[in-house]
């Protein structure tokens, strides 16, 4: 016999799925634990390798995130390093009263909100726009080169980034002032002028992180079914229409998830970059909650007051992320949990 099997046979994928289903059923039948405890023991015996792999992450969370929470109580105590956390006397909400009557703290809160709002307004769309632009590049080598160039700043230490920014904006020899000079403008010492801190800080953040941040959106774009584009091409859509009508709606769930995460981190303005770029002359616009905590807690030794400020920061972030998540769930059926 010749060519007996050139016609249509069974679908091999279907067969594998059926076999996998049967194997699961067989495994379910093979043990009948009497109690929840027996079921759990049985489960650990079968899946212990997974828990071993999970353990380092759990340990990291416990040691670095949960154990330090014990120290949060000093936000409500008159903390002394000699008495320790447990033996320091309780003072209730006294530190919070001090915080909210401290003009510098209130200014730091407003600065944090303003910088975060600018970051959200300009910094959040930047990686999305970059990803959409990368997606339109057809030349593979050009695309890879462009991607590598915009990813690079992410891997540079903040200290070097700050050094580059300080050099670029220097009043003499800085590239920005040299360019201003070409147009007959006077040099500006940008980093000592409060009104320039926020644009420089937000711009630096975009330059450093937009490229790397675009990876997640590029991955989302890569997941869009290619036949949607082919179908649109046959229907007569151009690339612009495809971007608006297919790409962006398709990656909208990813955009919303990233937005929720971003809102959760709204109070976490890049601490080290602020420390590296600000100076007393720019505190008016540059001092944020974290830098204020750093100065009060570590430099002035007021750990209890700094802990209260940190707790306030965390509570605000918690409320924001909860609100963003529930709004997103209600209006777009997309949420983190």
């Amino acid at each position, binding site marked *: 016999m*010749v060519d007996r099997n050139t016609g249509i046979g069974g679908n091999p994928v279907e067969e594998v799925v059926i076999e996998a289903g049967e194997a699961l059923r067989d495994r379910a039948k093979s043990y009948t634990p009497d109690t929840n405890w027996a079921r759990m023991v049985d489960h650990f015996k079968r899946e212990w390798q997974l828990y071993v792999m999970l353990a380092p992450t759990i340990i990291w969370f416990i040691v670095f995130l949960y154990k330090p929470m014990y120290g949060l109580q000093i936000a409500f105590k008159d903390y002394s390093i000699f008495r320790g956390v447990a033996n320091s006397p309780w003072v209730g909400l006294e530190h919070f009263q001090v915080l909210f009557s401290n003009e510098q703290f209130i200014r730091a809160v407003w600065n944090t909100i303003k910088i975060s709002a600018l970051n959200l307004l300009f910094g959040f769309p930047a990686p999305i726009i970059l990803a959409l632009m990368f997606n339109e590049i057809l030349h593979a080598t050009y695309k890879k080169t462009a991607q590598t160039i915009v990813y690079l700043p992410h891997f540079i230490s903040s200290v070097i980034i700050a050094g580059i920014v300080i050099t670029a904006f220097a009043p003499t020899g800085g590239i920005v002032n040299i360019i201003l000079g070409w147009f007959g403008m006077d040099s500006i010492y940008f980093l000592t002028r409060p009104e320039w801190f926020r644009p420089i800080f937000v711009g630096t953040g975009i330059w450093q992180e937009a490229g790397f941040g675009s990876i997640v959106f590029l991955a989302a774009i890569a997941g869009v079914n290619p036949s949607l584009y082919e179908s649109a*091409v*046959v*229907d007569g859509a151009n690339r612009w229409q495809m971007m608006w009508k297919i790409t962006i709606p398709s990656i909208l769930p990813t955009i919303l998830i990233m937005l929720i995460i971003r809102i959760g981190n709204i109070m976490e303005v890049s601490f080290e970059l602020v420390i590296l770029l600000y100076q007393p002359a720019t505190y008016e616009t540059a001092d944020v909650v974290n830098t204020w905590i750093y100065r009060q807690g570590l430099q002035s030794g007021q750990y209890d007051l700094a802990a209260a400020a940190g707790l306030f920061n965390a509570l605000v972030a918690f409320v924001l992320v909860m609100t963003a998540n529930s709004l997103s769930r209600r209006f777009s059926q997309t949420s983190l949990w």
Partner: protein
Amino acid sequence: MAGVNLSGIIKRYGAAQVVHGIDLNVAEKEFVVLVGPSGCGKSTTLRMIAGLEEISEGDLEIDGRRMNRVAPKDRDVAMVFQNYALYPHLNVADNMAFGLRIRRMPKDEIATTIAETAEILGLTEYLQRRPADLSGGQRQRVAMGRAIVRHPKVFLFDEPLSNLDAKLRTQMRAEIKRLHNRLGVTSVYVTHDQVEAMTLADRIVVMNDGRIEQVGTPMELFNNPANTFVAGFLGSPPMNQMKAQLTETGARVGGSEINLARPINGHAGRDVIIGIRPEHVTLQPGDQTTALPISLDLVEPLGSEALLHARFAETEVVFKAETHGNIAHLQGVSEVHVPAPLVQIFDAETGRALSLEH
């Protein structure tokens, strides 16, 4: 409506040539099915017609106009994709209206067209649903609706039923056939399923390895396959094929001589492959039949029919027999009878059908 004409169509990806000079003329209102195994070039050919793949060489004409360099949107074709290609964020009405909005059709015309098409496809009550809330069959209907609303000159179908289960596939097959009869739009349909090809096509194009093996009506291809590939591809189970040698009176297969009931015309001694369709044999001798001694291996009941798996002349063969509601009488079968006029003969070297005329 329009015809589609392909002449000398070649497709290359770098140095690799995957379609080797396709010549095909699809007449106006005709339903042509491209069928073949995976990787035979049928989808590539369809995508070249749609404009989704560039044509490396050759000419494509739609409605008499050369289309090689014409953008897909200007070819006036509509395509139905294997995975439906429905926009998940749009509801059924918006999915169907997508192409019309791109073409800036007035809103009231869009609404009327959508309503009419939804009525034809039984989708009226689902117009506000999103694709995720539809069954596979409903999604397939929406995909077809999106193509229909455009009123294109040519419909292109790329394995549109392969994601459906067997029952739904049968239903949708009939719906596509009815739709074609109603709309009468020239259609090119790609499938790897020979049953779809046989049931839907006005003409079938059997492809293999980037070439057309045979073009013809379903029954032409079934009754007179041009070569062993077509003989083995169409029909379920496929045609039994076995090596043989022509004699003065017929063909010798192992120790048996099969009556061919046609003049051998000096071909005696030639090595051939003979083909016998499983459904062409009988259990009782008849006019011009030859008895084939078989060694029965297995009987597979299918209801009104059963498949007899057996060995004949050291070759595995499958024949069909009627059960009449019982397979007991099939268990002891030791010979089947082959009607001479229905035996196909192919050249052993080239695999091409032999006429033995001279």
